[in-house]
Each structure stands twice: as structure tokens, then as C-alpha cells.
């Protein structure tokens, strides 16, 4: 099981928050909001794959 997914998500989170701060400081609030949104979507896509994997294992294991 690849453990580095966690560090990827944490990295994206920290990066997005730093970028957001920088962008808001330079007066680009809309860009900051967009980068936050982009980060969120990327992380969501990564997690959705994991969720589908969970449901498949549970279904195959508990056979319902």
C-alpha cells in the first residue's frame, strides 16, 4: 500500500495554503480562491480512487 499518498495530500494542502497567502497578500484574491479550489479537486480525485478500492474490497470480502 503506497504510504506516500498521505504525504502527497499533506504537501498539496500546505502548498495551497502558502500559495493562497502569497496571492492574497499581492492583492489577487480570485487567483488565491482558484488555487485553493484546484488543490481541493486534485486531492478529491486522489481520494475517490481510494474509496472505490475500499468498496470493492469490502464487497468482494463480505460478498453482498
Amino acid at each position, binding site marked *: 500500500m503506497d*504510504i506516500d*499518498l*498521505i504525504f502527497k495530500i*499533506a504537501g498539496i*494542502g500546505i502548498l495551497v495554503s502558502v500559495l493562497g497567502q502569497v496571492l492574497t497578500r499581492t492583492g489577487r484574491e480570485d487567483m488565491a480562491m482558484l488555487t485553493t479550489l484546484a488543490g481541493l479537486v486534485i486531492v478529491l480525485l486522489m*481520494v475517490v480512487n*481510494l*474509496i472505490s478500492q*475500499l468498496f470493492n474490497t*469490502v464487497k468482494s470480502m463480505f460478498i453482498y
Partner: protein
Amino acid sequence: MDAIVLVGLGVTAALLALTLRSQRPEMAMLLSLAVGLMIFAMLSGKLSEIVEVMRALGDTAALPGGTILLLVRVVGVSYITEFAAQLCRDAGEGGIAAKVELGGRLLVLGMSIPILIALMQMMLELIP
């Protein structure tokens, strides 16, 4: 060895989630979701062995109908609902968590109705 991996994973994830929570609470929630799924994926091998042993025991004990199958299914349903409910509670949504748990209980009850009926009939036969 497995325990150490589990503990290490949990502690690092909690630490990372904490750093994220101040700036990006939604990222922290996604992080905890990912960690939960990963720990389950690590444990699924052992879990399937346990399920196989339970099924073998069920066959030897010749229980009526799919009792063991139903038992295993109930465990699966309750695990998933508990997983989702705890996640909602982490995100601060106690209300949604309660609804998910209610739904899980109803599902389990609905699935165990046939067993209840079989039990009742058995009891009635005992009474002369």
C-alpha cells in the same frame, strides 16, 4: 512488525492533519479519510482470512440457511457505516453522523428479519 507500521502511519497522519487543520480544514478531513482507507486496505488481507475461518466454522456447525453469510454481511455493513459516521463526526457534522448510524442500524435490522422469524418458529415448535 505490522503494528509498528500501523502506529507510525496513524501518528504521522494525525500530525499532518493537525498542521493542515489550521489553514485548510477540508484538506485535513480528506487526509484523515485517505489514512482510514489506507489502514483498512492494509488490514483487508487479515480480515478476509478471518471471514474464511468463520465461514468454515459455519459449514461444519451446519447452521440453517446462510446464517454465517448473513453474519459476515452484517459485519461488513456495520463497519462501513461506522467508518462514514466517524468521518462525519471528525468533520464536525454530528447530525449527519447520527443519520448514517440510524440508516446502518435499519439496514442491519432489515437483513436480520429472516433469522428472527426462524427463531420465533423454532420457539413455537418447542412449546407443546
